[in-house]
């Protein structure tokens, strides 16, 4: 069934047991919503010397948005902001591909399971919700760290 390409096992696993989900308490906190459906995410992270050292998020949303936030967290924690942003760029390109790309597993790891989302334009925003919150927070955290030095 076409649905199985959207709801891959990996996605449902992350949905049921999301990683890095908890109570965001860091100094840098962002809150993003998807106004068309009401999904929300609060995300906090810490950047030290250009490296993302910690990330916690909480939110309500569909399986795609929750799984995507979980996968994103795994991918970016421990990476440099620059590395994380290049992963984000690659993921954004995959989401914009309308089903034409499969994604580079070396870079995107579990996130390639979200490739099927790109065939459902209405769901792309779900998949990007957590990533956009991350981008927003990472920029703020990086600026904040530099200022403190």
């Amino acid at each position, binding site marked *: 069934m076409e*649905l199985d390409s959207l709801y891959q096992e990996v996605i449902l696993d992350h949905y049921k047991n999301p990683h890095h989900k908890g109570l965001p308490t860091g100094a840098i906190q962002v809150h993003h919503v998807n106004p068309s459906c*009401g999904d929300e995410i609060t995300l906090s992270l810490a950047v030290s010397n250009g490296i993302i050292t910690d990330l916690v998020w909480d939110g309500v949303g569909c399986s*795609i948005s929750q799984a995507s936030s979980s996968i994103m967290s795994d991918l970016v924690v421990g990476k440099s902001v620059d590395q994380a942003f290049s992963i984000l760029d690659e993921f954004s390109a995959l989401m914009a591909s309308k089903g034409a790309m499969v994604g580079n597993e070396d870079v995107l790891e579990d996130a390639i399971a979200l490739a099927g989302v790109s065939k459902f334009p209405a769901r792309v925003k779900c998949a990007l919700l957590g990533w956009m919150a991350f981008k927003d927070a990472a920029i703020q955290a990086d600026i904040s760290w530099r200022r403190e030095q």
Partner: protein
Amino acid sequence: MKSVLDVAAIKADFPIFEQSMRGGKRLVFLDSGATSQKPRSVIEAESNFYYTSNAAVHRGSYLLAERASEAFDGARSDVAEFLGVDSEEIIFTKSATESLNILAYAFGNPRSARCVGPGDEIVLSELEHHANLIPWQELAKRTGAVLKWFSVQEDGSLDLSNISSVITEKCKIVAITHQSNVLGSIPNIAPIISATHAVGALFVLDACQSVPHMPVAPRELGIDFLAFSGHKALGPTGVGVLWGKSDLLDGMQPMLFGGSMIDSVTMTDATWADAPKRFEAGVPNMAQAVGLAAGLKYLQSVGLEKIHEWELQLTKRALDGLREIADVKILGPQSLEQRGGVISFVIDGLHPHDVGQVMDQFGVAVRTGHHCAWPLIRKLGVSGTTRASFYLYNDMSDVDVLLESVTAARDYFRKR
């Protein structure tokens, strides 16, 4: 039992049902609460205007301009006749949203005969769609007026037990929906209208979900203003209606200024035409108004009472069926009392988007999310709902596919 409507014949009038959806499935359109599909007569009326009559109305001394004016004025008469009101009381807007904003702007303008000020009260309900909420919120912010509202109860009705403390002498405007776009509940507006007029306030009815689906007579209801959107009533997008009592409209300042809406203009000043032209600045949405009139004619030919009765039959079957599916919870009214053909439900543990995605595989079109009524969704304590809304082109087999697809959605995520 003989069906109230000949749905097969009706469906044949709507070309959109001729195509198939994902996987070759037929279209089961259960999102008429968001927008209705269009019969051929509406599509043709709109396109025929462009083929034969297109010119700017109410100006130009040539034959086409006369035809355009005749068609546009005729559409206004048709809408007036549909509601049982006078033509001069019908204002064509781009949407019900614009209709309600025109009111909110007029009541915020000190040059209007009726205007709200600091400490005055505006009364709404928790059922309201954003279109009948935010314009009033903004009016309150601009003027220092205070927003008050009736609370919604679990069965989707409004709690009127405190009506005398909600509507007081300070109240200037009461704006309430005729039917919830989320729950389908029809609030008991009669006592609210009486209370409104008892304190000398004005009553605005958001009739977006009622006018397309049941007989609505503003004069019999005793209301002051009514708004509805054309595209939910078989008409084209880009046209809505504002009805208001003539004496009230003539005391109101317009929201948009420009051509067509004036009486006289100098370099420093201008005066306004009477309603409805005062509120229709610019070359209007002529083809859309003509299309809407064709849509309303179609509804009249079928019969609004029959449409309402049929929708309730569909709703009954859907409510009974949904109740049989474990883990499904129907929100709002559980019976056919005081409701229309809109049902919101949630499946325990599943997000509405995921539910809607599986239903799409069955060709079922439903709305998922907060339905532009976020405060109501928060009050219901859910993140969103899945909503099925019925119309005259839906039949019992559509309900069966709805139930099949809901069961499949539940099972799809359960087993994995």
